[in-house]
């Protein structure tokens, strides 16, 4: 526990301990709810914006994470750890999973999902907003895209992003700034600057 707690917050440690030694299902539910957006959005960016694939990968990522949780020693934060699992799962998915679409699983979940779909108006609005955002992001180089998302949307510190992406903090600040410049260009509102593009 002491070793595991090194890079974890109190909340994260409690969650991990509860999963390993307490109410496994409750801890698993809290764990997924806490990190589902993070994992899903990473998968989405690594799978060219395919929402169904991103859902599949996110689900598999959590299953893999739960299997590996007893061996998680806490030398990085859970987000860093999950990021690596998600990226690896995306790579596996691209290689193999496409061949094995689990039809029965899709059918099982279809009815449940149908009952919880948003209203048509909201669907259209969501789709437009997210599609525009994702289309815009997809035009950035991978490092800048990840840095922008993790900093701007997830609000992670540069130190955390540095651990995840393996880039120096100063490099990340530059990446973030240049990502914003490019996004402004894409939107048709270029940022005036003293020459650097």
């Amino acid at each position, binding site marked *: 526990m002491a070793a595991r707690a090194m890079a974890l917050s109190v909340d994260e440690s409690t969650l991990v301990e509860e999963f390993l030694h307490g109410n496994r*299902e409750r801890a*698993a*539910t809290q764990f*997924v*709810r806490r990190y*589902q*957006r993070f*994992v*899903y*959005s990473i998968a989405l960016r690594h799978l060219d914006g395919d*929402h169904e694939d991103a*859902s599949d990968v*996110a*689900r598999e990522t*959590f*299953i893999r994470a*739960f299997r590996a949780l007893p061996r998680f020693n806490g030398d990085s934060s859970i987000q860093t750890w999950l990021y690596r699992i998600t990226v690896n799962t995306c790579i596996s998915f691209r290689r193999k999973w496409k061949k094995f679409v689990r039809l029965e699983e899709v059918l099982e*979940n279809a009815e*449940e*999902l149908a009952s*919880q779909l*948003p209203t048509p108006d909201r669907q259209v609005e*969501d789709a437009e*907003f*997210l599609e*525009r*955002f994702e289309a*815009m992001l997809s035009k950035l180089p991978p490092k800048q895209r990840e840095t922008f998302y993790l*900093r*701007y*949307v997830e*609000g992670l510190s540069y130190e955390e992003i540095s651990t995840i992406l393996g880039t120096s903090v100063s490099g990340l*600040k*530059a990446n*973030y*700034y240049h990502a*914003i410049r490019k*996004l*402004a260009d894409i*939107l048709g*509102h*270029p*940022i*005036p*600057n*003293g020459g*650097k593009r």
Partner: protein
Amino acid sequence: MKLDSLRLLLPDYATGRLSEHERRLVEDALKDSPELRAELEQIVALFDTFPAQRIVEEYDWRSRMLSVQVIERLRRESSQKRRWIHWLAFGTTCAALAIAVVVMQHRPLTPSNDPQQLQPPRLGQSAQAMETVPVHRNEQHVRIATKAVVPNRAISNTTFPTLAEIASIDAVWVATFPYDEIDHQFVEQFAEMLSDATVQ
């Protein structure tokens, strides 16, 4: 601080994520630099077009079913694992029974050297009398416990155990199988390993 370094701070200034010291540096520079102010305006316009909070909400909305799906899958895997363990225990029991039967059938029975005891029991002799049959067996439970009359057949000194004997042995073996002493955690891990290997 150089203007280029200050530029890198502008996005975090716009989202309020600078330290007090850095914030003051940026504000001082903004007063003197119309270029920086113009940059900041464009950055703020970009952030207003795609507010982080809205993006978070949309992704939350899209991924909201994950917890249900993951828990459902965990439950399914858990029940599959339990089924695996039951099958493994059943298979082990069957294998052990089969081995026991084979061993009993092929175990050499030591005949007695006493010629008196080489006499086969008379037809209709009770099972109690079978204890005088020249066959040494160490295990208590191997003996037939029944008082039933021995069938009308001659028992030679090289006879293998009868079906009734084997049935009796098996029943005792099953009844005394130390199920509670099984290392269930080991069996569970073994089943999980097999399951993973099968999936891969």
